[in-house]
């Protein structure tokens, strides 16, 4: 097939350059200082002294282990809940309901969800207020360490409730590519329980499709900053929080230590990923041995109810948290144990709104543009992959996922230096490009599976009908994949809206988004203001996802074959 979409030829190399350039320079800019090289700060020779210093920092090992633990436990719980729920309820009315309820959760930024959770479960939080004093007899909040607990349990909870919607949506996107209805029926007709049928017959091909998304969750949870700041342990905190502290240290020489720490973070995330691969192997072994033993696992009700409860809890916690945030944003004085504010006031909104228009415009422009570019590049890359046949270029395209696996914090300082060198810091195009590094992988991740699983005989028929590749792409493939494309766009959009570090660093404070404003204000700890910004931060991606789910239904309301 010599012909093809001409633009598609340049797409893969261009994409890789956009992604790997910043990554490579950023890592170099981090690794060199870690090894002692940063001439501007007097580091002119290579040394391992900074690593020795790093390992002498009190509690550093605990911080690192905690990060690994959080990464693994979060992923295990979230994935387990999603898998068990899909297995248990696929095809039921409850499944459709849950899908409608969970999907919007994806749009809630991590920080907002974490604040919401903290406002709910803290000793002075909403839950305690609801049962005080009539049940607990308390008119003062108990002195209990719930949020910021040393085992990072509340932090994991905050991450799990946010990763469940992500993994659920990814799984839903992959589901149509399997013959799930027939497969489940077949399994159950052979006497296997629902969960067993799913695990043995459907899960292996399904998991293969969502595997990279799962890896991204492991990497993210092991290197997350904002959620850890809000819910994570204090003494010592997880590793990324310590890195941020060091990077913010006015004693600029601490940068060497921070750089060494950023390299350690790289190792921590890598270790978590390797451990996860180990889990995969173990899981596969368990499934195989159960299959070979022919066990039917017909009594799986406990697991099913458990999974359903966890999914429900995830939705309730995030929604409840957002509701409490919203309430705080309009509250006047609101003391414990009052379940409602003593008075309401729009003061926070009135103060915040006029100042929000600039950041809001930047947020929309950057998110819209980076998503559009990511979408075009992704589609052209996938088209090129289709035209050249799988395998070729496929390996190189795996590199697209690197920005999701490499912790942001590990290459951000280097990236900042690069942008200043090039004189493009604080420029709009540089900011779009910086966002693109993180938006593109997510767009690719959400679009590639449906794209590849698309029945290529449609393309063959179109060719037989005399349609060119470009025309086939525009008339057949893109419309048939509308739902997947819009979902990918919504994912990309919300990833961009949620970006904090790249915006702060490349925007150099001159280009601010709703998220950077929210985090800056969160430093003030004012629940009312946090409420205002977290609400706005939630609203934008929520709108994007509403469009992504609503529009295809509207466009194809008379096309049964395009329903999922």
């Amino acid at each position: 097939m010599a012909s093809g979409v001409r633009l598609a030829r340049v797409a893969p190399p261009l994409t890789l350059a956009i992604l790997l350039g910043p990554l490579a320079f950023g890592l170099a800019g981090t690794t060199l200082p870690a090894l002692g090289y940063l001439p501007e700060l007097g580091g002119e020779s290579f040394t391992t002294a900074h690593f020795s210093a790093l390992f002498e920092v009190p509690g550093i090992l605990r911080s690192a282990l905690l990060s690994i633990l959080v990464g693994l436990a979060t992923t295990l719980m979230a994935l387990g809940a999603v898998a068990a729920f899909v297995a248990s309820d696929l095809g039921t009315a409850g499944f459709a309901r849950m899908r409608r309820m969970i999907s919007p959760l994806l749009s809630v930024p991590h920080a907002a969800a974490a604040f919401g959770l903290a406002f709910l479960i803290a000793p002075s939080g909403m839950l305690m207020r609801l049962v005080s004093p009539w049940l607990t007899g308390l008119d003062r909040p108990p002195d209990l360490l719930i949020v910021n607990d040393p085992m990072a349990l509340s932090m994991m909870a905050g991450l799990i409730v946010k990763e469940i919607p992500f993994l659920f949506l990814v799984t839903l996107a992959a589901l149509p590519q399997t013959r799930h209805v027939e497969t489940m029926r077949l399994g159950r007709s052979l006497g296997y329980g629902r969960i067993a049928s799913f695990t043995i017959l459907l899960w292996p091909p399904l998991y293969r499709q969502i595997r990279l998304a799962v890896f991204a969750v492991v990497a993210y949870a092991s290197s997350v900053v904002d959620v850890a700041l809000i819910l994570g342990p204090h003494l010592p905190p997880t590793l990324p929080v310590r890195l941020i502290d060091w990077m913010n240290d006015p004693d600029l020489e601490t940068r060497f230590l921070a750089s060494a720490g950023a390299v350690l973070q790289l190792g921590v995330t890598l270790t978590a990923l390797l451990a996860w691969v180990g889990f995969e192997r173990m899981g596969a072994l368990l499934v195989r041995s159960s299959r070979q033993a022919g066990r039917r696992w017909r009594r799986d009700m406990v697991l099913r109810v458990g999974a359903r409860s966890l999914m429900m809890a995830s939705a309730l916690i995030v929604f409840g948290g957002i509701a409490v945030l919203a309430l705080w944003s309009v509250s006047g004085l609101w003391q414990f144990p009052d379940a409602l504010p003593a008075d309401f006031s729009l003061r926070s909104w009135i103060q915040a709104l006029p100042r929000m228009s600039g950041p809001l415009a930047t947020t929309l422009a950057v998110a819209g543009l980076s998503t559009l570019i990511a979408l075009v590049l992704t589609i052209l890359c996938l088209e090129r992959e289709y035209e050249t046949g799988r395998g070729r270029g496929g390996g190189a395209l795996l590199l697209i996922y690197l920005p999701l696996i490499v912790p942001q914090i590990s290459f951000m300082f280097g990236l900042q230096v690069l942008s200043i060198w090039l004189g493009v810091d604080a420029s709009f195009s540089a900011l779009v490009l910086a966002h693109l590094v993180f938006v593109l992988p997510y767009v690719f991740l959400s679009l590639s599976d449906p794209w590849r699983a698309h029945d290529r005989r449609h393309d063959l028929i179109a060719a037989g009908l005399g349609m060119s590749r470009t025309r086939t792409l525009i008339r057949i493939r893109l419309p048939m994949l509308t739902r997947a494309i819009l979902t990918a766009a919504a994912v990309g959009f919300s990833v961009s809206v949620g970006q904090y570090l790249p915006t702060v660093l490349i925007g150099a404070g001159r280009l601010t988004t709703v998220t950077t404003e929210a985090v800056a204000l969160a430093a003030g700890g004012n629940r009312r203001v946090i409420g205002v910004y977290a609400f706005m931060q939630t609203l934008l991606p929520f709108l994007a996802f509403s469009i992504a789910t609503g529009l295809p239904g509207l466009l194809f309301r008379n096309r049964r074959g395009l329903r999922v």
Partner: protein
Amino acid sequence: MLKSLTVLAGALSATLALSQAAKAADPDPRNWDAVLGEAKGQTVYFNAWGGSENINSYIDWAGETLKERFGVEVVHVKLDDTANAVAKVLAEKAAGKNEGGSVDLIWINGENFASMKRQDLLMAPDWTTGLPNWAYVDHENKPTILTDFTIPTDGLESPWGGAKMVFFHDSTRTPADSVPHSSAELLEWTQRNPGRFSYPQPPDFIGSSFLKQVLIETIADKSKLALPVDDASFSDDVAPLFAFLDKLHPNLWRGGKAYPQNYPDMKQKLADGELDIIFAFNPSEASAGIAAGELPDTVRSFTYTDGTLGNTHFVAIPYNASAKAGALVLANFLISPEAQARKQDPAVWGDPTVLSMDKLSADDRAAFDALDLGIATLKPDELGPALDEPHPDWMERIEGEWLKRYGAAN
């Protein structure tokens, strides 16, 4: 480790000073008309902590006024930590960007100032005493205007507001006659009221200030605090401080296993009833909190009999700022009687002025006198003595020591 880095930095700053010698002429505040002319049309990126909506609104007001009167645009770059702006200037220096930097004016004091001064990251020489409104500044009676954490300001930063550590309590839960009036009494108070006091985890500015307050009260030889840390006697010098903390921590909120994030977090916890005594660096914070509906109107203030920490906060111009003239105009406006009076109004911000009432015109003085400081704000004569900040070296060292002792407690 920290020591070797400090040595490195010392060597480095010497080299940097050389490289910075020859540079384009900066605007001279003594030729104010030229400054105003140059400033017109400039955009000043003012890097300032953005965690308080009150302060943000005030900065907005200053920006609008400047635009109206002098044609200078002000953009408030909201920081969650001032060190970020310091780091930004450093990164620009690292990239060789010695002109056209992204930070024009920075809200600063203490160790951030010490760090920038040491590394020659600030516009020099002395520009602050050349500002027209410097004439009103009370540098005679407020020594912290010329000495920032024992470091001479040398005219590299212009004063903006005063600060003094003040404690708050809710009089419905904690009667005024039961509050402590020294760190020693505070310790006893926590033993009677376990779990109701805490301080933000260092290196939060307020949290570190608490450590310094205790350090000043407990160290045997107070004169040592004016100088950099003496390594030989450091552990003896701080032994009483950490003995104090060891006794304090079991009775802290959450048993000292978690700490409030910062002052606003403590304020929230006072309102929630989690904490009974909190403290701030701004005497009118409590009144401002009441006005904003964040604190009940039963909150009151107190200080220590023998004094609490006091200092001044400033604005400074980075050496590579893009809009130096505009930054000068803004810095000058911020110490105008008009801007200072507005700032001291608790309904706006409530930050104490750096001006001398004696130097003001009768009208301007009347504007200050007319301010209602709020029910929870102590009058100037009730604030008690101000204790000088120790040399910044101490803060860094006790923060490090704190982290070593308590940082991996769990």
